[in-house]
């Protein structure tokens, strides 16, 4: 009996010692050099593999249909955002990989044309969540800045790579509509859903305006400055100093600072107000970003804000409070601000818990979906488009 007890205790002690040795080493199984995820210049191996899978979805309609059906069962927005992130990625890839530029442009045009056709044919609600129909938009005729901003940025990104005359009036029309509504709005806050405005959508739309100014020699710098001043004054959470993610048309906060929004917001702000963008990234990194035992991840809310898991945050893993949505978008923030340590640790987590699946040189993450993979591709390729605008090189 004593010998049995002794054996069990020795066994348990061995298990504890083994766990103490193994757990800090676990990340080494999944850690890769940063260049595996992001390379400057050129395309990293992961970017190429993710892109190959995304391009395959646009050459095989049956496969695309299957992927979209799964995403639309949860959220029709993902169908739309998957298109936006892929177009923005392809624009950056065209600058990183000039020999493949024509293939990328062809796919960008295919995506843009199909998106515009669906918007025209099915109406704007096709890409919105069902609750958009539950109330009336305060400003009539109804427009969603979510759609207008992202479509405008898709059109502008495409034209930044190579002019396409057919897209010029489409972009001008979309930009004029956004600018007109911003000028008419007493607080410069536009709806994405009925009386629901999103920081993410405003920042994307302002980037599109900035790109359109560059492309078509217009000047909306005063409007952008005015909007930034308003946001800093009215839309910052006083405790964390982070921009809140959603608000009503009179500026009442709906949701506080959210990881699924702020990382992309900081990225977009880089074109609008570089110092403020860096400030927001650094605050988000401090409040939301974590590295534990070599694995990087992000929370959805700062400690000072209590929130419930939602469609944007994805399921929250209790204990560590890991948000899939925030962790995925953190790649974009870390990549934008060249935070190599955080980016590498996020990539380690992705290979550990994202369940990569490779076939024929194509990569997808099973724990992700098409929009998630497209956002990762964007994080792995972003940079050249913004740099081109800043450098002032015309297409």
């Amino acid at each position, binding site marked *: 009996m004593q010998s049995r007890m002794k*054996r*069990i205790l*020795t*066994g*348990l002690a*061995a*298990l504890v*010692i*083994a*766990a103490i*040795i*193994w*757990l800090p080493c*676990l990340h080494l*199984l999944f850690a890769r050099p940063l260049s595996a995820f992001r390379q400057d210049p050129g395309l990293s191996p992961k970017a190429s593999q993710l892109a190959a899978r995304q391009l395959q979805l646009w050459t095989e309609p049956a496969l695309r249909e299957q992927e979209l*059906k*799964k*995403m639309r*069962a*949860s*959220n029709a927005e*993902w169908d739309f955002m998957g298109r936006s992130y892929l177009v923005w990625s392809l624009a950056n890839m065209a600058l990183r990989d000039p020999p493949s530029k024509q293939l990328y442009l062809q796919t960008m045009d295919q995506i843009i044309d199909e998106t515009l056709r669906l918007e025209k044919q099915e109406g704007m609600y096709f890409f919105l969540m069902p609750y958009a129909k539950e109330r009336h938009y305060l400003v009539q005729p109804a427009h969603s800045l979510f759609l207008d901003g992202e479509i405008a940025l898709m059109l502008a990104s495409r034209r930044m790579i190579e002019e396409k005359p057919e897209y010029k009036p489409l972009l001008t029309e979309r930009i004029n509509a956004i600018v007109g509504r911003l000028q008419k709005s007493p607080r410069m806050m536009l709806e994405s859903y009925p009386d629901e405005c999103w920081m993410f959508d405003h920042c994307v739309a302002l980037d599109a305006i900035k790109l359109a100014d560059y492309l078509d020699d217009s000047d909306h710098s005063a409007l952008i400055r005015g909007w930034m001043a308003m946001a800093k004054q009215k839309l910052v959470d006083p405790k964390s100093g982070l921009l809140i993610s959603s608000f009503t048309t009179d500026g009442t906060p709906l949701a506080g600072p959210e990881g699924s929004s702020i990382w992309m917001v900081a990225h977009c702000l880089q074109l609008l107000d570089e110092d403020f963008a860096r400030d927001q990234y650094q605050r988000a990194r401090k409040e939301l970003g974590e590295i534990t035992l070599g694995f990087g991840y992000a929370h959805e809310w700062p400690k000072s804000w209590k929130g419930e898991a939602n*469609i944007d945050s*994805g*399921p929250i893993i209790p204990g560590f409070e890991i948000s*899939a*949505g925030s962790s*995925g978008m953190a790649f974009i923030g870390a990549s934008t601000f060249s935070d190599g340590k955080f980016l590498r640790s996020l990539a380690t987590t992705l290979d*550990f*818990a994202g*369940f990569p*699946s490779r076939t024929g040189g194509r990569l997808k993450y*099973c*724990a*992700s*979906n098409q929009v*998630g993979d497209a956002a990762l591709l964007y994080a792995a390729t972003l940079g050249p488009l913004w740099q081109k605008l800043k450098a002032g090189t015309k297409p």
Partner: protein
Amino acid sequence: MITKFWQGLGPFRRAEFLSPRDLLQRAGAISVLFLAVHLAGLREFTSVLNGTIGSVAAGWKLSGFLALIYILLYLAFVILVPVLVLAATLLVVWQRFRRKKEKSSP
């Protein structure tokens, strides 16, 4: 012939609880189970982690259940299996060390 067959099955016979062989048997069982669910394609269902259904045909409940099985076995494979193997190695080293000490003591 029969004796040889039983000797061949030695590694699979039930070992004493928390003995090195017991730990290795558990590590082996987890690895086999994980390999089975992996080859069965259950990895595809892990998309439920971001709120996307694994398969529209299978529905949410079944997709979630299959994802849970895959994730638990995967975590057991990458976290528990190395710990079990390492612990078995530590026990073997410890036992050899003790035996050596006992032999050398007067």
